[in-house]
């Protein structure tokens, strides 16, 4: 039964699940950034960006990746519309949709 559901792509092998879970946990372990901190960062980024443009909250993706010994924070923030910055604000340029560190 198990093998049939796998053949028809209805369930992943437990190895595939293990690999995905390991990938995530190792990124957090290696960077020392706990998953919860990522949520905090995400909310603060939304707050800052929202001052200048309207963003699509549901589509926001913020994740850590780890390649070749470097951890990077990737943020993908869909923008709905460019909101005119308040008068007197120095930030009149469109923020980039992908912020990297």
């Amino acid at each position: 039964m198990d093998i049939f559901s796998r053949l028809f792509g209805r369930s992943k092998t437990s190895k595939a699940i293990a690999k995905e879970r390991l990938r995530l946990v190792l990124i957090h372990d290696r960077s020392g950034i706990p998953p919860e901190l990522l949520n905090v960062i995400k909310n603060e980024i939304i707050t800052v960006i929202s001052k200048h443009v309207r963003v699509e909250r549901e589509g926001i993706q913020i994740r850590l990746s780890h390649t070749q010994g470097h951890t990077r924070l990737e943020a993908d923030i869909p923008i709905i519309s460019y909101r005119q910055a308040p008068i007197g604000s120095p930030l009149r340029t469109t923020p980039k949709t992908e912020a990297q560190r």
Partner: protein
Amino acid sequence: MAGRAITITSGKGGVGKTTVTANLAVALALLGRRVTAIDTDIGLRNLDIIMGMESRIIYDIVDVVEGQCHLLQALIRDKRLPNLHLLPAAQTSDKTALSREDMIAICQELKADNDFVLIDSPAGIEHGFQNALAGADEAIIVTTPEVSAVRSADRIIGLIEMNGKGPGRLIINRIKPAMVRRGDMLDTYDVIEFLAIELLGVIPEDEAVIVSANKGVPLAFEQSTQASQAFHNIARRILGETVPFMPIIEERGGLLNRLRSLFRFP
């Protein structure tokens, strides 16, 4: 010429550090090398029982550092191999009885009279692990193809590098070919991909390991089983030989050559 001190460690307990230490010690001794194995798991010694020497312990490593005996008096010689010795851990002292400086001094002294000093590390990343690493020139990380063991191994590899003893080489223990085939176990390739260190060997799950522990005769004394063969292959790789990996890895095309290329040996 001074020998090499190698720590065998894992982070997680129960992955087979002690079994690997005992069998590599026997395999290296059978290849004619002078070997002393040190059990650094103070309070939970086990290497003595796996090597079948538990009834002959008079002094232990803590007695040595406390000056109760000389280092040579604490060494237990194997009954079959005169070039194989064990320095047992203390069973009653607590782990603070040993310091990093003690370990460095003991390893230094043993290296003068041995080709290999194999240090069996306790589980964890605390005091005992730091001690086990202190006197080592290099490290072997033992893991199993399970998420918890691989995660611990990744952490340990980082700590070994921080201590300037890195990156260490990897032994994957207790792989079950049938589970790998079903997609229910990480394979060698997956583990290497995560941990990104050199592979020293792969040991298949083998009931003979338990039988040999029951008897107190490490598996490596016979070459009859797959696991035993794996230990002998690893011992030869430690000596610098290029030994092909066993068929469990060859099941995936092209991988063998990739793994071979990881080795810097001629």
